[in-house]
């Protein structure tokens, strides 16, 4: 299953990005094949509508879950209707590798 994680950078050591719509990178992690991809968030600098654009981008990778620091009120219903699960991690010190390790439980 594919999971997206919002990331501040493009390495395993990067910290989780607390913002969903304007995060720097999306990490697309396949929990079965363990394949990981860092994808720059195209919506990052969008003047408006960053959230919905980011949702589109992530949804195109067919992820089933998204891990981020928060999801805006406009994002939640979108993800709900796409049946993508939201996982909110409030700890800003979590690195991408920590999240992947947790997902591998």
């Amino acid at each position, binding site marked *: 299953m594919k999971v997206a994680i919002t990331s501040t950078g493009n390495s395993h050591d990067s910290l989780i990005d607390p913002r969903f719509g304007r995060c720097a990178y999306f990490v697309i992690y396949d929990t079965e094949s363990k394949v990981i991809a860092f994808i720059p968030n195209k919506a990052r600098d969008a003047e408006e509508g960053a959230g919905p654009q980011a949702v589109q981008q992530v949804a195109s990778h067919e992820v089933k879950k998204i891990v981020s620091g928060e999801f805006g009120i406009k994002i939640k219903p979108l993800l709900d209707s796409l049946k993508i699960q939201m*996982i*909110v*991690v*409030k700890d800003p010190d979590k690195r991408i590798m920590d999240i992947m390790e947790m997902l591998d*439980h």
Partner: protein
Amino acid sequence: MSPRSKRLRKVINPPLVKGFKPYGPDAGKGITEAVNLHFEEYEALRLCDYDKYNHHEASGIMGVSRPTFTRIYSSARQKIALAFVEGRQISIEGGKVYFDSDWYHCINCKCFFNNIEKDQKVEYCPLCGSNKVIEAESEVESSPEEIREDECADFCVCPQCGYEQPHHHGRPCSHQFCPSCNVHLKRKARPNFQQFRHGKGKKH
């Protein structure tokens, strides 16, 4: 744990018109872009301010959680204020009927997550796999300060003897009776609402 069923947000009474236009010599000279009021925002406003249901009742009627209802309702009011102040048109359309998922909290890894499969019981944390999951009190975003919305700033007063009681949304004053005179009560604005709230229970 008994997961509540996933909720369907529904609009029961569609609006009579498609929107509103400002008029007068200066109408249309400012920002011409219409303010788009979603169906569910229209519905929230209708239930609260027209039908006089309190937030608790209205959220039940619309099939959404209280925090969600509060959010829709305040968004409706902000949009209408925007249109009024800036002299913009209001179009009532869009929004949709969609599922509003329930939220859970993992005590082990402290994450919050929603349940997208209404028929499946939430037993494990999707992040760390722990089974120490509880239903989250509300959605993750903090809801606006909790107010007793069944008690508004006004009160019902007896036109004969001056007897007063707090006015409740959804209970028209004219359906209330004065205990001593047995006449219909009338509505009156409360000037010192804050004071009243803090000194609740003390009758003067």
